[in-house]
């Protein structure tokens, strides 16, 4: 999958800037932005939580990216395939089924304490439609990959951002264009769920 940076922790993260100590502020601000934040200790626990969510929302068609980089995620996506449920992980399949899919699952590189945003590297087309077209978007994130504020986020981004498509997501798609009444899910997902995992991801070399 095309990315702005193939390995953010190795190429962009600086221990001075990226730290789990900004977690509490992130948790507070991301919830204030109407993100559903779920905290899991291990990948195993994360998988159980994901299974529960998918079951509850009765998702039939699922788009899923990021499984190639993170084997645990790849396994999870396989396990989600079961009777009557299809998980698309191939980019052409994703492109074809994106307009009808019920759920998109992807990954974020790090969180921002000050704003509750997650930084998403969406240089690939499939990662963009996964996060934008289905009514629900679930994002996996490592809980200690946090920066203090937007300023430090850009210091991290500046190290690797030479070309491509990326940015922040901070809660679900929203509008207040009619009488300033807040409404979710206008063009993008109406539900935005972040599953933050403490256990480090085992990355494919």
């Amino acid at each position, binding site marked *: 999958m*095309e990315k702005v940076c193939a390995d953010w922790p190795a190429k962009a993260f600086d221990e001075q800037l990226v730290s789990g100590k900004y977690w509490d*502020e992130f948790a507070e*601000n991301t919830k*204030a*932005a109407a993100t559903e934040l779920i905290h899991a200790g291990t990948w195993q626990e994360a998988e159980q939580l994901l299974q529960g969510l998918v079951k509850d929302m009765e998702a039939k068609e699922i788009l899923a990216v990021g499984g190639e980089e993170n084997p645990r995620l790849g396994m999870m996506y396989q396990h989600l395939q079961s009777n009557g449920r299809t998980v698309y992980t191939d*980019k*052409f399949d*994703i*492109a*074809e089924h994106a*307009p009808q899919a019920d759920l998109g699952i992807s990954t974020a590189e790090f969180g*921002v304490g*000050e*704003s*509750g*945003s997650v930084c998403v590297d969406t*240089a*690939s*087309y*499939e990662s*963009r*439609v996964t996060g*934008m077209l289905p009514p629900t978007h679930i994002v996996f994130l490592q809980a200690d990959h946090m920066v203090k*504020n*937007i*300023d430090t*986020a*850009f*210091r991290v*981004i*500046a190290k690797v*951002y*030479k*070309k*491509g*498509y*990326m*940015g*922040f*997501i*901070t*809660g*679900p*798609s*929203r*509008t*207040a*264009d*009619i*009488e*300033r*009444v807040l*409404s979710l*899910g*206008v*063009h*993008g997902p109406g539900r935005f769920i972040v599953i933050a995992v403490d256990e480090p991801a085992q990355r494919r070399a």
Partner: protein
Amino acid sequence: MAVKEKRNIRKEIHNKLDDNVMQGALAKFTSEYPMARLKAYANVDSIDDLRDDLRTMKRWAVDHIDALADEFQHSVEERGGKVFRAADGDEVKKILLQICEENGVQRIVKSKSMATEEIKLNGALENAGLHVRETDLGEWMLSVAGQKPSHMVMPAIHLNKEQCAGFFEQELHEEVPSDISYMIHTARRVLREEFLHADLGITGANFGIAENGAIGLVTNEGNARLVTTTPKIHVVLIGYEKLIPKVKDAAKILRLLPRNGTCQRMTSYMTMVSGPTPIIYKKDGKWVEENRKQYVILLDNGRLAAAKDPKMKQVYQCVRCASCLNVCPIWRMVGGHVYGHIYSGGIGAILTGLLGNMEAFSKFSDLCIGCRQCTTICPGEIPIPDLIDELRARYVKKYGLSMPEKTAFQHILTHRKVFHSLLRIGSVAQKPVQSGKFIRHLPLFFSGMTDGRSLPAIAAKPLRDRTEDLCKHNPKNPVMTAAFFSGCNMDFVFPDTGESVVKVLQDLNIAVTYPQEQTCCGKPVLGMGDRDTGKVIAKQNIEALEATGADVIISACPTCAETLERTYKELFKDDVQWRARAEAVAGKVREFTSFVAEQYKAQGRTLPQAERGSRITYHDSCHMRRGLGVWQQPRELIKMTGADFVEMKDSDRCCGMAGAFGVKYSEISKPILHDKLENIGNTKADTVAVACPACMMQIGGGLNQQNPSVRVKHVADILAECIAER
């Protein structure tokens, strides 16, 4: 591209004042906005540090705009994008139509771009037979309704849900209930089809990064993310003012823009696109992946000339958050459409002028009353009222004033004796409509001016005729001498207050002189943009004040004080001799309350607690609080009198007088006054103190008709009463 517009601004204003839907929406929004904004900033150490950082970065950018544009273009092209530079809207349209033709484009989706509104792009595309859809919900509804956005961030704030449902029905030819959730989901369904079938997406940009050619887009709906994802071609229309040097500089915009614009710590989506990015689509029955085509059009349309202009280049510090509107007392009354249909509010007036439509600018530029509320929150720290003044002065220099103004300013104001004689005649002529110190009702077509507000009567004996007697009470061995610059208002309308000023100064062992040759400070003419007349008046006053040889020059009118202290120096910036004289005078000018508070402290003075038992609130004059930065001292003085001091809500919000504005636009001035009177009433104070004669005129006139149990007093009057108690 100068467009001559035939508009009747007065009529438009009346329509907006009668639009109850808009009035309700704007009143609610503007009252909630300040607190919501501060809440968004609650986890930031210093908002002003962020503003300073942004301004410094943007100033650097404008000073290097040509090099930045070259670097940006190189970065985009190096990555495979194509860059055009367009001198104006016509060129943009030519380039776009060419792109559409070359690529067989039929359907276009757009994500909010004010620049495309500026050049009226949609109409041109539609005339060429292209299917164009706005995708921001508000913009889409407005395009269906044939309206323009009334706010840069909340385009449809002037509408209610019933009106919106009407536009939905008009577009979809089906019944649409005025249920917001239903409408949102209908818009999602309808516009989803547009995204999926569009050949080309057009976006604006919140910033463009020279270092890597990325553009940044800030949205809540996510439409910009879809417009830059689903179509095979992406066209960016970006003004030169959006260029910034480095990737990390984007943070300087993003820490302020969402907080000021929508009171969010970050919008739902912040998207950056650098170079053409991949797209997957079905080609001849097979799924393929290739890079989308990216075209970037850099738009000039007056921007590059502004960048080279030492004063006007400050507009490059604007990040289009529109927060200057959100705190503007006039925008709150008239809404955004009156400003010229593209960029509204104070910054809108400036942009409209700079982007080639000085005619439109001249029509509504006087809707800025110079209250400077916007300057306290603008993320880029742009002195918006000063830039409006500058543009107005340039307009007047080029096209001149209208005839009645010309007569009034150039033939009356510059001749002190003629001007003052007219005021004296006025004091006699007003007799039939006078009631005590007020004119309560004016006959016939003047009646609007006194509707809900009395106008003060011109005093029978002006201050200048009383000072000879007053100065006889000067101390024998004074600690210093003061020249009293009264201003017209205190001279001819409130001479009693002028007497109070003299008494307070004499009580401080200061000898007061009143230079008879002083005339109007010139602010009314300068405010209209007539700097040549302003200079004639300034010279008269400088000479009159120099002749006194006094140690200090005291003004108890903040507008006069600001004009003498700041404006005269700027007025003569290119005249070495007069600038030196203006600076010497400015160095001696002191605003009354801050001067007295300082002297009381220095002399260890206390006051007899003469006001014990009375309840006093204080109204900040705009020029005093934000022009001179004086607001604590008058409060301290009031507390010294033993009065029960009570703060009113929005004490620093304009009372609606604002010089000639209060009379010229009395229909806007009165509702602003009404809010002020309500806040005063809620304090249950028996007295409202002011330190500005113009505010005293406006608030006093309103209280006279609407709440006569409350008195308005200048701080000088309150102090003078205490001294009399001794």
